[in-house]
């Protein structure tokens, strides 16, 4: 039997795709790309400063005044009390660590796997890692209460002659987050060096020139400098991936190591890692949409093809998340342990049942309905909307695991529903600070890694094979 090619009634959209629409096949002279990126950094209007001013006020109120109140009046100002000692501050900690995973995933994994469409948005994602970890650190400090005693956790001798206990998962988290924060900040800085050197070359005097001169550390682009830089970047790209996995696995062990119903699960490690990627990827979609909409010339650098790449990853990760969630759900459901059953019943049928259904809709139904279609994935606002809903779902997932989960324990006389109070404005404060840092960074450092874009454009070419023009990639690295 022979196979006969029959024409479709309508041509497939991909048949009409011009390879020149892709950033890698639409090169501009490097000088022009530099000028575009520099102009995008300096072109600000009153809206930008008004939003910045608004965010500063929110941060001052939520993270300044409200935190002062929390410290002065104690943790009772928050909604945490028996049995819900772990509330929204820890929900935010886990959420922001999750957001921070996007940078490493996008930058390191896609770099290792040589996914070319990563090039224009790696830095935007890497910044999310650093700024996300700042919010995670602040959130855990809020939870600490007497935050000035945080040094008791450090392995240094102190006047009380108490050393930290490395048996505790909380110490593992401290080590893991510290490692991740330091390494991801260094990893953000390495590929930034050639771009700040470019900014140094294009800036005439003033404090900005000094700022770029200091940050560029004397980089010129000699063979030895490039060799050292790319070697270090390769080491980081490979080494930071297992660290990324370890961080959220260890965060999950903060819960799983406790023999509480609903928490003591062997699947929590990978389930948390996938959850982190789910929220992180979705956050990258939102950030790219905002950058493309608000920054001058970014429509050249960030194109529908990049949203398509992120959309595919979001769909894949949402399927993996559903798989792990089902694993985590089924075993306690089937196992018949009375306390596990009670936690599940409280989550699904208790007073907060709507959170559980919203979480499932946002984390599974939304991506599966919206992201299977390439045309929809390429729509920036649609992808950003899906990203926003996924992040709502992922925040709710952490809320269900932490304060809702701890409500049901083995001492029914302590059951009490948790209501966040001062946590709400302080949560808003972390979001405001994240946006504020991002907005300030967008005016100070090139968010597009221009040298990486040019490197990719040099390696790509269009080749005619038969009747079609095919994109080809040379191995120039």
């Amino acid at each position, binding site marked *: 039997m022979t196979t006969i090619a029959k024409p479709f009634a309508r041509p497939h959209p991909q048949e009409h795709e011009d390879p020149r629409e892709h950033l890698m096949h639409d090169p501009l*002279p*490097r*000088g022009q790309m*530099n000028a575009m990126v520099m102009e995008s950094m300096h072109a600000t209007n009153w809206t930008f400063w008004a939003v910045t001013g608004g965010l500063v006020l929110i941060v001052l109120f939520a993270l300044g005044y409200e935190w002062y109140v929390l410290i002065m009046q104690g943790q009772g100002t928050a909604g945490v009390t028996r049995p819900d000692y772990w509330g929204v501050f820890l929900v935010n900690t886990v959420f922001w660590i999750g957001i921070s995973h996007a940078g490493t995933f996008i930058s390191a994994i896609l770099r290792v796997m040589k996914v070319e469409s990563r090039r224009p948005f790696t830095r935007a994602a890497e910044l999310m890692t650093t700024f996300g970890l700042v919010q995670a650190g602040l959130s855990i400090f809020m939870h600490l209460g007497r935050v000035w005693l945080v040094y008791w956790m450090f*392995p240094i001798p102190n006047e009380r*002659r*108490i*050393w*930290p*206990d*490395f*048996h*505790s998962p909380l110490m*593992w988290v401290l*080590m*893991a987050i*510290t*490692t991740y924060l*330091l*390494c991801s900040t*260094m*990893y953000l*800085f*390495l590929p930034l060096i*050639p771009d700040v*050197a*470019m900014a*140094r*070359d*294009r800036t005439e005097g003033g404090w900005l020139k000094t700022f770029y001169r200091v940050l*560029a*550390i*004397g*980089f*010129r*682009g*000699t*063979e*030895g*400098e*490039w*060799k*050292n*830089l*790319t*070697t*270090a970047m390769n*080491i*980081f790209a490979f*080494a*930071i991936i*297992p*660290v990324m996995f370890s961080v959220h696995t*260890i965060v999950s062990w903060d819960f799983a190591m406790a023999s509480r119903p609903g928490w003591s699960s062997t699947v929590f490690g990978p389930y948390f890692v996938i959850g982190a990627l789910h929220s992180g990827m979705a956050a990258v979609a939102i950030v790219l949409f905002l950058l493309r909409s608000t920054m001058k010339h970014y429509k050249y650098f960030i194109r529908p093809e990049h949203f398509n790449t992120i959309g595919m990853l979001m769909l894949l990760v949402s399927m993996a998340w559903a798989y792990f969630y089902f694993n985590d759900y089924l075993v306690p459901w089937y196992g018949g342990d009375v306390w596990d059953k009670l936690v599940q019943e409280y989550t699904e049928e208790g007073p907060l049942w709507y959170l559980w259904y919203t979480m499932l809709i946002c984390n599974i139904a939304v991506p599966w309905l919206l992201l299977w279609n390439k045309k929809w994935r390429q729509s920036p606002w649609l992808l950003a909307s899906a990203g926003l809903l996924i992040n709502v779902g992922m925040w709710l997932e952490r809320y269900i695991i932490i304060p809702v989960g701890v409500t049901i324990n083995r001492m029914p006389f302590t059951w009490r529903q948790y209501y966040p109070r001062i946590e709400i404005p302080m949560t808003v404060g972390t979001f405001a600070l994240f946006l504020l840092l991002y907005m300030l960074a967008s005016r100070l450092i090139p968010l597009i890694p221009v*040298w990486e874009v*040019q*490197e990719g454009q*040099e390696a790509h070419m269009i080749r005619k094979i038969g009747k079609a023009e095919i994109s080809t990639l040379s191995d*120039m*690295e």
Partner: protein
Amino acid sequence: MSEAITLLAMFEDIEPASEGVEKLQQLGLSDDDMNVISGIPVKHTILGRPAAITYVSRIGLFGALMGMTLGIFFIYGIPHLYPLLVGGQPIFPVPMGFIITFEMTMLGLMGFSFIGMFVDSGFPSYTPKEYTPEISDGKVALLFTCPASEQEKFIDALKDAGAETVAPVEARHL
């Protein structure tokens, strides 16, 4: 070598720059006397140059060993100083030793790779250097030192290879 002069040849692209490297080699200039400066990393085989030596990996490996040692000290050394019995666990726990040791090893590896990049490249350096901002705009520069008496020969050879300009260069603040 008689009195030496440092020249900077500017090329539009990588292709003529690699031709320029070949011309300099044919004129007897050693690889140590020339350097290619570019806005993107260019593989040494594309330029026809020997591979640049880097010690970043070795420094990183040293850091990993240091980090591992520190991690082992944290998990096994600290209980010597302050023994804590927790939940029936051993004083020197092996499984959680892996966690702390892993984190410290990776921190050492990446931290020292980062430092190694600085040390091996001589960063940070704010002294005057031979450079032109056109390089970060996509031009490729060939920086070389040759006998002053023979500079015309080198300039002509590089212009033949496609150099836009070949001129003496002085170090300046970046």
